[in-house]
């Protein structure tokens, strides 16, 4: 006893009731049959599949696309789809069968081809179950002249034969007239070509925040941000000063990613670095506490802080707001952040939201941490039995 489809409500079917009176029209989602002259189907189909998902992984869903490549019958794919995703009558919500002639001709022309490779025609396709074309009391489906002979997963050769779409432009001729290797540029195929690698992607994938080209060129030059702005991963522009302020300003929150990191210095100590306003800052150790170390480690996706004394005392200089350091041979001002004076009462979940700039670091110490990764992937040791 299984749940009826949504239009019937969510109550369980009564015993023996099965899915009677549950039939409804639903949009066709089966990739193989997306180019039919109808868009709605009704389940179960004529092969006994209860859902389109079940149909999509069925033996028949593999069989028919393979068989159609043999060019055994022009309307084989149309027939296959009328039994995999039967047309739904919007008035009665009932499925409309293929006509018997279509079934008979498909079987007559293609069954023998299957026999050559030792396979059998699907058992559930007994053509006598389908009505005759001239039947007065039942409608049935026949192909129009202009029906698509190939499924969306296939490429139609100039000769009319269907070959797998994945074999188009693969450098090897699969159509007898080599037409599957013609016009192989992305543009000719309605796709966009990654500039450096000859990879074709859909136009909808350009500037959508997910890199698809190996060099990420599909996500470049997607926005024109002002001088004081930075580009979010989804290509919105956000004020530089709002970067890593503890509040998500990009709608994908990317201005708040990777705000807290650890940077090595020459002694291999890991200094805590906060990327406030798109500039890396050290963190002054004034008032630093153990729970802040734990928060920092956790924010970096690392387990717990293992450093008992995470504060590094600097040797020279007085209380400072900036420190001059050598970066790639150039003198640069290294900025500092301090804990907010009332950080303990602030209700925030990130470390960087507790920090402010422009204050003196009285202790002249910066925070350094050692975080350990949480344990993973270990199975308990096998138990030993004395024999």
């Amino acid at each position, binding site marked *: 006893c299984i749940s009826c489809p*949504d239009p019937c409500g969510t109550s*369980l079917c009564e015993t023996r009731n099965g899915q009677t009176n549950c039939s409804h029209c639903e949009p066709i*989602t*089966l*990739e*193989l049959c*997306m180019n039919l002259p109808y868009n709605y189907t009704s389940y179960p189909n004529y092969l006994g599949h209860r859902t389109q*998902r079940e149909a*999509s*992984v*069925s*033996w028949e*869903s*593999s*069989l028919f*696309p*393979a068989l159609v490549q043999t060019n055994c019958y022009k309307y084989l794919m149309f027939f296959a789809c009328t039994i995999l995703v039967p047309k739904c009558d919007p008035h009665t919500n009932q499925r409309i069968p293929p006509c018997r002639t279509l079934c008979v001709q498909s079987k007559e022309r293609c069954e023998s081809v299957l026999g050559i490779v030792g*396979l059998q025609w699907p058992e559930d396709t007994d053509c006598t179950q389908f009505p005759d074309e001239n039947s007065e009391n039942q409608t049935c489906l026949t192909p129009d002249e202009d029906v698509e002979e190939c*499924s969306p*997963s296939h490429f139609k050769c100039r000769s009319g034969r269907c070959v*797998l*779409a*994945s074999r188009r432009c693969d450098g090897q001729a699969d159509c007898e007239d080599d037409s599957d290797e013609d016009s192989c540029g992305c543009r000719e195929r309605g796709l966009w070509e990654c500039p450096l690698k000859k990879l074709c992607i859909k136009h909808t994938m350009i500037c959508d925040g*997910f890199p698809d080209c190996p060099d990420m060129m599909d996500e470049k030059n997607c926005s024109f941000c002002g001088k004081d702005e930075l580009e979010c991963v989804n290509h919105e522009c956000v004020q530089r000063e709002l970067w890593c302020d503890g509040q*998500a300003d990009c709608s994908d*929150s*990317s201005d*708040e*990613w990777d705000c807290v990191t650890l940077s090595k210095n020459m002694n291999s100590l890991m200094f805590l670095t906060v990327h406030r306003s798109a500039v890396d800052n050290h963190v002054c150790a004034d008032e630093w506490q153990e729970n802040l170390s734990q928060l920092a480690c956790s*924010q970096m*996706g690392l387990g717990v802080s293992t450093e008992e004394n995470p504060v590094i005392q600097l040797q020279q200089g007085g209380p400072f707001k900036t420190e001059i350091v050598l970066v790639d041979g150039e003198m640069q001002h290294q900025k500092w952040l301090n804990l907010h004076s009332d950080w303990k009462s602030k209700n925030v*979940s*990130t470390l960087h939201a507790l920090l402010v700039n422009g204050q003196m670091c009285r202790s002249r110490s910066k925070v350094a941490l050692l975080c350990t990764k*949480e*344990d*993973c*992937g*270990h*199975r*308990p040791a*096998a138990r030993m039995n004395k024999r």
Partner: protein
Amino acid sequence: ILGGRTSRPGRWPWQCSLQSEPSGHICGCVLIAKRWVLTVAHCFEGRENAAVWKVVFGISNLDHPSSFMQTRLVKSIILHPRYNRAVVDYDISIVQLDEDINETSYVRPVCLPSKEQLVQPDTYCYITGWGHMGNKMPFKLQEGEVRIISLEQCQSYFDMKTITSRMLCAGYESGTVDSCMGDSGGPLVCEQPAGRWTLFGLTSWGSVCFSKVLGPGVYSNVSHFIEWIEKQIYIHTFLMN
């Protein structure tokens, strides 16, 4: 799992069962952190409401709950925004539990690979689950050893679908060991140096596993999704409270 064997209890401590009433076990899932679980997006088709789900850990026999079992409710379900049900691409989702699990020898997280860490063809890995065995649904967790297959070779088995870089194939041409209905969302793990087990795949789709057409199983390629997983966990932990 087809062609597998019953697992010793506790052997796969990251395996969990995604359950919903009245059916009980619907899909497998994998513990990756104290409050986070991975599974596939198609498990939630028509059931995206977090309130109808619970996640069971530390269980071996679905019919006999043990004292090692832990159950958590689901706080939120994060489906991959590019998940496409028609072609079963980007089939991955993250589940946030309502509270942390207690780590025991029966309930432990698996390691995640890095973005660059790819499993090589011909590597032998393990799949686990309570899915169909070909002749019956098991009560006890099953395990099976499968071989990683290159995407090119895998494409040759599946005429009707495109095998994308978001997918990983594993199994055998003859389909002797394969995942099956009910294993979805469960782990494909490979042993790494120092005896660490790393999650490279999540059971996603394949041919009808006990039909005449066999071939390998197709798994969501976890390495491909690492950055997305990390960002989502960060956003939901630190930015959404």
